[in-house]
């Protein structure tokens, strides 16, 4: 048995790199330090029920097992003969594979788009219009005395974020608030138990905690590190927070602009903004100004609801305003483990982070026009290559329908609705478990993904599969196949 240390977890943008994996005869028997999702991945990835282990090509309407060479050949044929193919996915593979993917997209004159298009795409559009004051996560660990998660639920989507980088981490200038939290939790649990007991006795429904804390708790006056959650519902993360502010759905923009006014010492002539009492907002603004180092982490709650990139504009503008008063940073909570890497590689090779169109022979970028969902909704593409992602599940139905209607190639280690509907399925190896490579954390820190076990023989690395397709495409085009 061997213990592999310092393993980077191939799940989310938190990219924890302290996992320890026990390996016995090329199989993983245990994993330490991982969150529930990471653990589930390391212990289940070989399950043959959901692993792609055969190259498949659709023949007579049915996916039929073929040789890997045939699957590659068929993929190359589809791409070489397509007028306007979409190459989509990329956020769950290595930067090395993404590099080849961009070369392939350029070669076939297609569009390459990554999952940020339906995730933090609006955040990127916003950064492109106003910029962003940000930092690496270590700055937060060492310095932040105020952490705000806005429209983000790290407990559910980035389970170790708080423990590794924010309120429950120990830094040079800031201490972990874990012990304070445990003390407070005991108090709360005690109250809950009491109310449950009294409910049983009185046979009445258990009283539900109030929607939002109406005013700040007294311990807020103290010097300790503070954690605040702003969201449309009381998430699990909100329960951990020192304070929770509930905003009405689709009204984050108003709340952010109201805070901007307050931070600039303006007064608000209303009682409530987006469901939040103004006197509470005034206190919140004071907290924002009076910290030594504050940070907003924002989730797709802002990018996917009404206002989209305008919400991020407001959040970044607020952060910029705060830098006139103190030190403040802001960071998007990136989802997939290498979605940041997909943006980064695309940017250095083409100048643009996603939705890059090569149909004119040079990189062109115009989200809304060159982004995957829009192209599909306009029914313009005539083929696709989907890698390490599941747009058939994750795109709105009308976009997914147009994807499925045209020839679709999938490269994926696992069975998903997308691979099930594909015309070519090429099984691949898991990056970070069976293949090494580079990935970028949500704060754009590059980390090595390890190879821990050997993949099944038929499962090649994404990079190699893409290279084979690229080579064949070039051969087809040289022999005039395009005509």
């Amino acid at each position, binding site marked *: 048995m061997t213990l592999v240390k310092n393993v980077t977890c191939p*799940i989310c943008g938190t990219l924890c790199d302290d996992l320890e994996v026990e390996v016995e005869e090329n199989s993983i028997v245990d994993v330490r330090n991982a969150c*529930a*999702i990471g653990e*589930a*991945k390391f212990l*289940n990835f070989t399950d043959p*029920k*959901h692993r792609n282990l055969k190259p*498949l090509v659709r023949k007579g*309407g049915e996916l039929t097992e073929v040789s890997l060479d045939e699957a590659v050949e068929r993929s190359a044929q589809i791409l070489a003969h397509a007028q306007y193919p979409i190459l989509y996915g990329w956020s769950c593979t290595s930067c090395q594979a993404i590099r080849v993917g961009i070369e392939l997209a350029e070669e076939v004159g297609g569009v390459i788009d990554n999952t940020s*298009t*339906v995730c933090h*795409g*609006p955040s990127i*559009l916003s950064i492109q219009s106003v910029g962003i004051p940000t930092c690496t996560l270590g700055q937060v660990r060492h310095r932040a005395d105020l952490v705000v998660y806005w429209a983000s639920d790290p407990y*559910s*989507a980035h389970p170790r974020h708080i423990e590794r980088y924010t309120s429950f981490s120990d830094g040079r200038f800031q201490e972990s608030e874990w012990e304070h939290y445990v003390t407070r939790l005991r108090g709360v649990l005690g109250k809950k138990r009491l109310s449950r007991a009294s409910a049983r006795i009185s046979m009445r429904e258990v009283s*539900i*905690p109030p*929607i939002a804390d109406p005013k700040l708790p007294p311990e807020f006056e103290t010097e300790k590190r503070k954690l605040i959650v702003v969201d*449309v*519902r*009381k998430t699990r993360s*909100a329960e951990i927070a020192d304070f929770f502010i*509930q905003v009405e*759905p*689709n009204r984050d923009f108003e709340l952010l602009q109201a805070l901007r006014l307050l931070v600039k010492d303006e007064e608000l002539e209303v009682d409530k903004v987006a469901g939040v009492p103004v006197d509470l907002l005034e206190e919140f603004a004071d907290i924002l100004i009076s910290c030594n180092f504050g940070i907003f982490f924002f989730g*797709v*709650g802002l990018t*996917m*609801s*009404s206002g*989209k*990139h305008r919400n991020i504009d407001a959040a970044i503008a607020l952060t910029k305003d705060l830098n006139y008063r103190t030190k403040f940073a802001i960071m998007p909570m990136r*989802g997939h483990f290498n979605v940041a890497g997909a943006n980064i590689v695309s940017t250095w090779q083409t100048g643009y982070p996603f*939705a890059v169109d090569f149909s004119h022979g040079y990189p062109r970028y115009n*989200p*809304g026009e060159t*982004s*995957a*969902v*829009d192209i599909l*909704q306009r029914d313009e593409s005539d083929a696709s290559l989907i890698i390490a992602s599941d747009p*058939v*599940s*994750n*795109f*709105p*139905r*009308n976009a*997914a*329908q147009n994807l*499925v209607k045209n020839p679709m190639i999938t490269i994926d280690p*696992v*069975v*998903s*609705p997308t691979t*099930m*509907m594909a015309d070519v*399925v090429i099984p691949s190896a898991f990056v970070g478990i069976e293949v090494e490579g580079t990935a970028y954390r949500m704060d754009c820190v590059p980390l090595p993904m390890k190879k821990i076990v050997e993949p099944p023989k038929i499962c090649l690395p994404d990079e190699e599969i893409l290279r084979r397709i690229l080579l064949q495409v070039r051969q087809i085009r040289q022999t005039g196949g395009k005509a």
Partner: protein
Amino acid sequence: MLIMSKVKVILLTGRTIDQGVSKEHGKLSKEYQEKVAICEVDSSDLKNLTVIKGLNIKVITRFGSVVVKAIKSSRGSHPGIAYMPYGLWANIVVDPHTHGIGMPSFKGIPAELEAAPSENVTPIPVLLEETFRKKPQ
């Protein structure tokens, strides 16, 4: 004849840790359907629907409708807000419009809920074949 009452809500879709974990058991697994083909509804809204938690409801928006299991929300009280984990079921009812920036509206969609005690949740393979009229693997 029983008249089904409807409840108007704002629909949010998003990640849950159960969805994240069950995904690693495979999207065709029973766990995945159990954790993802659901809608978290506030207890007061459930009462108005005359639905007991754990029974099925139909989520209806301008863009489509889908049957999922109703779950009582454990996340504080938020009447008028319903929550579905990301996935094939939720994406039938989300707002596909990108407003010219590439991003559909996955959150904050006006929706109606109605009790559907006699309807079943459609498993992924059936849903795929119905939606795309192509044979899934």
